């Protein structure tokens, strides 16, 4: 009796090996439904919020959404690529500055600069991922640190284009005639919701599965014609595109860009946000991550020096708990892939 049950367990393990690809139906159908409803509820609340609240809250929420997108871009990289980047501030800045520069020097609005930012982010991600395509993920992490550190000096010394220390302002409206705060808020919210939907779809798509397979079983993937270097380059390019989108939204929502917002620390903070959201790619996880990294510095401005310690401790605690034995992990939501 007992042994036959064990065998059943063993067979089901074969079908769904631990840590390998599972079909999109994750842990429990009820839990998944619950999550969908929770996400819908959150979106509904966020959608009607502008009618009820003041403009400062809307402003900080728009920044939250933009940062949530950046956090998502890091999470996607970790989830699908198994790689860590602390230099995503570079791609965020790329998106932000393309919006600002296209407006300042060419008079173009968001309708054109947003797609341009996405394309630039994609190309930059591709170029950056190519040299380390065959190496283990740690080389990418090291290279990404250099990427984050070279950003401020590039921004400051290419003053003619980037405005140097002072940065640039963005004043053009997306839709003329609508209130500024409103369109900033709704653009950020719409971008976040659309990206989350797209990622949920991507998770079950052929491409998504192929990337997960390349991460979990590189040799099996290679037998299907998916080389590991192709998988790594494409996932990094996708992640950089997302980061660039986040930057474009951030620039539009905050109406200003300056080198101060894109330091090595911002790159590390995106990673902190991603880890705090357990590297999830759902709306809720992204909002938690983005919320933490946006609101804590804003509301603890007087305790600014404690922020790194707080983030560092959060990073350590979450990583330790998430990787501890099954005892503690029971309390975390299912961690597939």
């Amino acid at each position, binding site marked *: 009796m007992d042994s036959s049950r064990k065998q059943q367990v063993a067979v089901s393990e074969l079908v769904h090996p631990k840590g390998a690809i599972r079909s999109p139906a994750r842990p429990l159908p009820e839990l998944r439904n619950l999550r969908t409803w929770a996400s819908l509820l959150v979106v509904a609340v966020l959608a009607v919020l502008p009618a009820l609240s003041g403009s400062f809250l809307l402003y900080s929420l728009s920044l939250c959404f933009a940062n949530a997108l950046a956090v998502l871009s890091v999470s996607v990289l*970790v989830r699908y690529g*198994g*790689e*860590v980047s*602390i230099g995503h501030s570079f791609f965020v800045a790329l998106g932000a500055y393309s919006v600002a520069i296209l407006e300042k020097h060419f008079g173009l609005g968001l309708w054109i600069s947003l797609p341009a930012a996405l394309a630039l982010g994609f190309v930059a991600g591709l170029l*950056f991922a*190519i*040299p*380390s395509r*065959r*190496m*283990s*993920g*740690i*080389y990418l*992490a*090291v*290279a990404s*640190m*250099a*990427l984050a*550190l*070279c950003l401020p*000096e*590039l921004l400051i*010394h290419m003053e003619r284009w980037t405005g140097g220390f002072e940065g640039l302002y963005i004043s053009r409206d997306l839709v003329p005639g609508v209130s500024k705060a409103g369109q900033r808020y709704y653009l950020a919210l719409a971008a976040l919701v659309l990206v989350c939907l797209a990622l949920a779809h991507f998770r079950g798509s052929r491409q998504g599965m192929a990337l997960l397979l390349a991460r979990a079983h590189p040799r099996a993937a290679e037998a299907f014609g998916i080389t590991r270097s192709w998988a790594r380059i494409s996932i990094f390019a996708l992640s950089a595109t997302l980061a660039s989108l986040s930057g474009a939204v951030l620039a539009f929502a905050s109406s200003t860009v300056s080198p101060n917002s894109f330091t*090595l620390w911002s790159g*590390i903070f995106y*990673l*902190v946000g991603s*880890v705090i959201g357990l590297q999830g790619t759902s709306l809720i996880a992204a909002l938690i991550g983005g919320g933490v990294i946006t609101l804590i510095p804003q509301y603890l401005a007087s305790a600014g*020096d*404690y*922020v*790194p*310690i*707080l*983030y*560092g*401790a*959060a*990073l*350590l605690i979450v*990583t*330790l708990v998430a*990787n*501890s034995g099954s005892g503690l992990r029971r309390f975390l939501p299912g961690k597939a892939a």
Partner: protein
Amino acid sequence: MSALSALPQDLPPLLWSGLVSGCLYGLGALGLVMVFKSSKVVNFAHGNLAGLAAFLVYGFSSGVLLNLSWGSAVALALGLTAIIGVLGYAVIAPLVFKSDLTSTIATLGIGLILQGTIQIVFGAEIVSLELPIPSFGFGLGSLRITAYDLTVLAVTALMIGGLFFVIERTRLGIAFRAVCSNPFASRVCGLNLRLVHLFSWVSGAVLGLVAALLIVPTTFLSSTTVASFMLTAFTAAVVGGFSSLPGAAVGGIVVGIAMNLFSFYVSPEFMNTFLLGVIMLTLNFFPDGLLEKAAGGRV
């Protein structure tokens, strides 16, 4: 054209000072590589710990925290740094055997905490920290060799010599090499992996402290100079192949000289961009480092 004709005048001092600072980058890189070789963790807290150590020496010798002589301040800071190194390893110890990336992320957490500690205790001030050495120098052609240069070279030679003696000649060193080349087999043979990891983490911390102390007189000490020093050490490690100790030392010197040439002939403002370029080119064309063939597989 004038740059070309001035080459015999300009080049020797550039190479010399590149060699001197390169030794220090090499020391920084050695710490990173030792930790990476034995425990497969990229220690992003390395630079922050080195920075904190330098600030501790400053704090103990200047009266901010204590008012000690330079020597005892260094000894105290050395002890504290070693303890922090051990603590840092203890915190991430549960993650070390799980995955390289998780433990690497965790070292970022440690780095953030150390960085925050520097900011809280010492603020954002910029301090200078001199070495207690006599200031003399002599000319040699277009070169000017100072006491500082000689100190750096002597200390580097001493540190590297000591390190290689330990690794080549002692039981601990043999254990270190065994764990680096095959952790599983060493465990089967009854080696204590944690002990070897601790050895490399503490040596890394000490090397970082020495490098930071020696590099600070040429710049200033602030909570941000550390980050660029860390990047240079990382670049040196990548150039050396990231898992080769001689590679790290040579990588440091190569990077030091290259940086000097770049800042003199091209532009001093885009130093980090240059380092990014060096990292990308090395990863693309010499993925195992410049010493790949020369050094073989040992150490």
